[in-house]
């Protein structure tokens, strides 16, 4: 029988020799051009990294093509980044240009470094998950097609991290992104009274609701949803399959802005609601693409160098953000969950717009 609990392969065997030699002894780096990092060791060694975009959803044949490239140019050493890009690791400066040439010939976008828009962290969507309110890969493709030049050029005030999650579970961890695309439902779940008694535990189902909208109906061994208290998070569906919530006409996408993760300059911040709802309009989600593009452009035009989207908004104020982007402010932007009072303006300090 197969061995269990062996854990992943030891990463050390996958480190190229130059990294093994300079492990923990790098002195500095430079971005020599978009997508190309140059790391210099204390001993003068130089490592080049060429970063290319990936659709993340990869076929094995495509992976083999990537392996071919890595073998030709990098002695077979490569890595993936925490945002799903591919990085070719080269000890030999002379191979950098030829690699890039071949990459470009094969339509691999080279970029994603520095003050650019790098790959979008995203999720499964209609490709594999059971709870999505939108697709993942489709909107990502449509958005990145539009923002392509910002991947290959470092022409923004600072890093812009865009992420997508197809439901409120937020597997794409969009809660701290410069721009977050979040699939949302807008109608309450519809308990299937015939199936529910067999497939769901009542107490768990009731407890799953963050707003207490679910009441157990002991007599019928099912549950009732108080539609007024339901904000369509879908958590009840996660724990109880007999409470479907997807709704083609009312599911869609919300847009969030101003989050960040790094501790650089400002502390990490949550993303905040910018646009409560845009329709699911496959295959290219034009409303979503336009909205994201607008935000990026307004940011690029107004922010100062090194200023992340959220830092810029904090400096100029949210009222200014809404004015400049032309996004409508609605009652949905005003929090009404448990920490709502912390977000209300408790000062006369504000701008007119």
């Amino acid at each position, binding site marked *: 029988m*197969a061995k269990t609990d062996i854990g992943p392969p030891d990463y050390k065997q996958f480190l190229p020799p130059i990294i093994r030699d300079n492990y923990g002894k790098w002195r500095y*780096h430079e971005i020599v051009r978009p997508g190309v990092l140059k790391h210099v060791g204390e001993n003068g060694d130089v490592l080049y990294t060429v970063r290319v975009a990936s659709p993340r959803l*990869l076929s094995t044949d495509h992976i083999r093509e990537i392996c071919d490239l890595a073998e030709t140019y990098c002695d077979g050493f490569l890595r993936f980044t925490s945002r799903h890009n591919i990085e070719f690791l080269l000890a030999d400066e002379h191979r950098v240009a030829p690699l890039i040439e071949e990459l470009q010939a094969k339509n691999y976008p080279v970029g994603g470094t520095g003050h650019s828009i790098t790959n979008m962290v995203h999720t499964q969507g209609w490709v594999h998950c059971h709870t999505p309110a939108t697709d993942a890969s489709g909107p990502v493709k449509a958005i990145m097609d539009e923002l392509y030049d910002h991947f290959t050029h470092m022409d923004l005030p600072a890093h812009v991290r865009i992420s997508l999650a197809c439901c409120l579970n937020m597997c794409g961890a969009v809660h701290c992104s410069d721009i977050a695309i979040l699939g949302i439902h807008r109608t309450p779940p519809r308990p299937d009274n015939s199936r529910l008694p067999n497939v769901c535990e009542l107490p768990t189902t009731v407890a799953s609701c963050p707003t207490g909208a679910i009441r157990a109906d002991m007599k019928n061994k099912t549950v009732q949803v108080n539609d007024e208290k339901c904000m369509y998070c879908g958590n009840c569906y996660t724990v109880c399959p007999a409470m479907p919530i997807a709704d083609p006409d009312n599911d869609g996408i919300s847009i969030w802005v101003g989050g960040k993760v790094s501790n650089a300059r400002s502390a990490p911040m949550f993303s905040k609601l910018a646009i409560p709802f845009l329709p699911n309009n496959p295959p290219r989600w034009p409303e979503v693409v336009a909205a994201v593009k607008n935000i990026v452009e307004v940011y690029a035009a107004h922010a100062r160098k090194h200023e992340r989207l959220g830092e810029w908004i904090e400096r100029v104020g949210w009222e200014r953000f809404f004015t400049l982007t032309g996004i409508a402010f609605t009652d949905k932007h005003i929090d009404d969950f448990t920490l709502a009072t912390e977000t209300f303006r408790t000062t006369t300090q504000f701008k007119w717009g």
Partner: protein
Amino acid sequence: MTDSKTPLLDELEKGPWPSFVKEIKQAAEKKPAAADLLNQLELSYKDRIGHWKHGGIVGVKGYGSGVIGRYSDRPDLFPNVQAFHTMRVNHPTGWFYKTDALRKLCDIWDKHGSGLTNLHGSTGDAILLGTTTEHLQPCFDDLSEAGFDLGGSGSALRTPSACVGPARCEWACIDSLDICYQATMTLQDQIHRPMFPYKFKIKVSACANDCVSAIARSDLAIMGTWKGRIQVDPAEVRAYADAGLDIRGEVCDLCPTKCMEWSEADRTLVIHDGDCNRCMHCLNVMPKALRPGKERGASILVGGKAPIVQGSLLSWVIVPFMKLEPPYTELFDLIARIQDWWDENGRSRERLGELINRLGMRHFLKAVGLPAVPQMVKHPRTNPYVFFWPEEIDKKEVK
């Protein structure tokens, strides 16, 4: 062209960004499951709704996690994705590969699955996307043979991840890769056999830039930092200035603690390190001139998570500074105490952060044996609803 069965998805083959549709089509040439995935996805694009059923419980022998069960809700139309489970393969720490290992993964997946993958999932696993129930065990056996193991899912420890750290970054204050790898190896049992109230995630970033989003996306975040003075190379500082960097505007003015002074006159940079909060900004802008201080270790934070159920949380500092050297005993002991307390007190589907919030930080600190320090808070409490421990109260009989 006109008789494509997937006119909507075809639209997503256009444009400069790499197309996932092309990937699926490529796999579909060999794999009926990939072909049916494509067709079902086209239907979703038409219907604007997913066509997967709520996942069932499937897995491999001896493990409770690592596989996400998935079934089509239209097996009549798409029989080849009637079952379409994913396997989460624990990635090599730092997502480093040599091509032979990657090729082995591909071969195994061509043998057992759809030929489609995610490199990688957002927790970090190499995701093998779509196979049948029958293939799970044989696929696992082949993976194990090739030196791979599954990652976490369900109420288990999830596959830990780490930033590239000392392997390729001048700022690494801890060995993020080794810590992550040791944690992964030490805690194998927790990864494979769900035993907790809910999921538990560990991520390691070797500096405050947090390139794996540890603070936002893990229940336990290990963040490299330093004590003492930033190492300044005055000649390189001047070189940056000479090269046109506006040190006052781009560095000093953006320092969150305003603890840096650049004198244009004598071209020197002074850092009041006592005020520095090690945000990394100045090092980021001048990597050649500034380096982290020499006494290095990590800050430990807990509680980060996405919104379900009580709302998103960013992680909270619980240990401002811990030296981290192999075998990381202090760290692993602390993790064990934290998990024990959570395991004992947590309700089903209650993440660590939510439990601390429900019971109160003071109970957590007491249980895991950590002292309260001001670094734990943005500011002290504003409400007067303060609890005292019984032993702090004057026991004289109250009349």
